[in-house]
């Protein structure tokens, strides 16, 4: 049976919160965003930076008009990015994929809420 790692009491991980919990030699970053839980190993596949300790930012998109002219940039809050603080590599919060080169990804864990607690399945 898979081992479970206790992250926090459910009410201590509010929407928009992030918690970093030790797990062996590394840590796991657990997020609750828009009611959904996500968990990733705190190791960037680039050079090993603590990706989950960086900013959580909305995807930046370019605004192009019908005539193909550039109209500026905007944030898309439907796609949130984990940004590694070492070099700025960005990862899709929903999948862990590195957004600029999807052959790289953060190690993803299943995470559940039960019995008033949040748990990561190891």
């Amino acid at each position, binding site marked *: 049976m898979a081992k479970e790692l206790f992250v926090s009491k459910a009410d201590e991980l509010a929407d928009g919160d992030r918690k970093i919990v030790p797990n062996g*030699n*590394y840590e796991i970053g657990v997020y609750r965003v828009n009611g959904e839980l996500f968990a990733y190993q*705190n*190791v960037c596949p680039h*050079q*090993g*930076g*603590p990706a989950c*300790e*960086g*900013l*959580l*930012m*909305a995807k930046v998109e370019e605004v192009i008009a019908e005539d193909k002219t550039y109209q500026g940039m905007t*944030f898309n*809050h439907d796609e949130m990015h984990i*940004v590694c*603080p*070492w*070099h*700025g590599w*960005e990862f899709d919060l929903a999948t862990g994929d590195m957004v600029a080169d999807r052959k790289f990804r953060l190690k993803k864990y299943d995470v559940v809420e039960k019995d008033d607690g949040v748990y990561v399945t190891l």
Partner: protein
Amino acid sequence: MEIPTDHLNKMSVAEFDTSKLMINAARQRDQRGLEDVLIVDVDCHHYENESMREIVEFIDDPVLRRTAQVYSGAGTGANNPFMMGSPGSQDVAGRVTRYPLRKMEETPEDDTHRDIHLSLRWMDAMGVDYVMLFPTPMLLLGLHPVPEYEAVMSRAYNRWLTEKILKEEKRLKTMLYLPFNDPDATYKMVQDFGDSEGVCGFMVVSTRYKPVYDNAYMKTYSLIEEMGKPLAFHGSYSWNDQLLGNTNRFLVTHALGFTIFNAVHLCNWIANGLPERFPKLNVMWIESGLAWVPWLMQRLDNDYRMRSSEAPLLKRLPSEYMGEMFYSSQPMEMPHNPDVLEMTFKMINAETQLCWSSDYPHWDMDVPSVIWDLPFLDEKQKKNIIGENARKLYNLDVSDRFPNYQPPV
């Protein structure tokens, strides 16, 4: 401290500690046994502007010292006559959080300079034994319209650096900043500081508009050659440059800027036969990555075969001279096809000519594992690139860290 994460929201950060930020580098160090390997970083930085009040006290000229005192204190506005700025976004608009957070970092209130504390924290985490320490904002001082300002400020900085930092911590060394826009001041800087403790060589920031072939520099090259120390050209960028001013995304400004100035100087160095005029002068190219070298090797060889009359001092192909130059590794490109990187290593004779560098704390820094984990290098090659090549180049005494050091075999 709060960092905006979009136009409405912010992320709060309570503390910042370099050792904690770099804990995964320390784990890599331990997993790879790098504590037992000589690691020399040929390019890292500090923020000398944070010590500017100390530095300006080393300015000789009383009028300029007073001026600098005014501007390093409360200031009189946004402008500063000594610093040459450029628009930029090195920290990817705050995403590389050590930039905005560094001012929060606490260091012990003791006799050791804050710069030494901060440097040793990341060096220890990565397992780095010695570094060549360079400034940060001063990397744009070569763009100052008045050569005197570069000469005065760099002399004060070099006095402060050698007396207050390098003398106090033997693991910190430098290749001394040269005020290249003033050839006579450059020569005098080499004369006056060449034998100072911790000065392992000399460094010209490439981002400027002075050609390396000017006769005014020949006496300086001769002197450096005679000293047996290397001369490095350090890449940088300027968004104010007329060519780079055509780029509107900093990723392009950076990708081109940090390469193109070094590329121009290297081409001039070769085409004017400077390797033949100064055959014992070791030249290093810093912070342009590696991919530009095979490009120029092929480009120059091709043109030289058709136009050798324009470079009559050369006795060999440009690529052969380039294969005898030294290169710092960072920011090392990681191409999709690793064969490309392996071929690049072969072309630049990486086993003897490549020296690892971190560029820490800057945004595109490399940790030692970028070299250590390469599958096509054997252990001797890894050790050469990560420390031994630099030790030989600088004739570095490593006995305080490795009393029984033996070069890798």
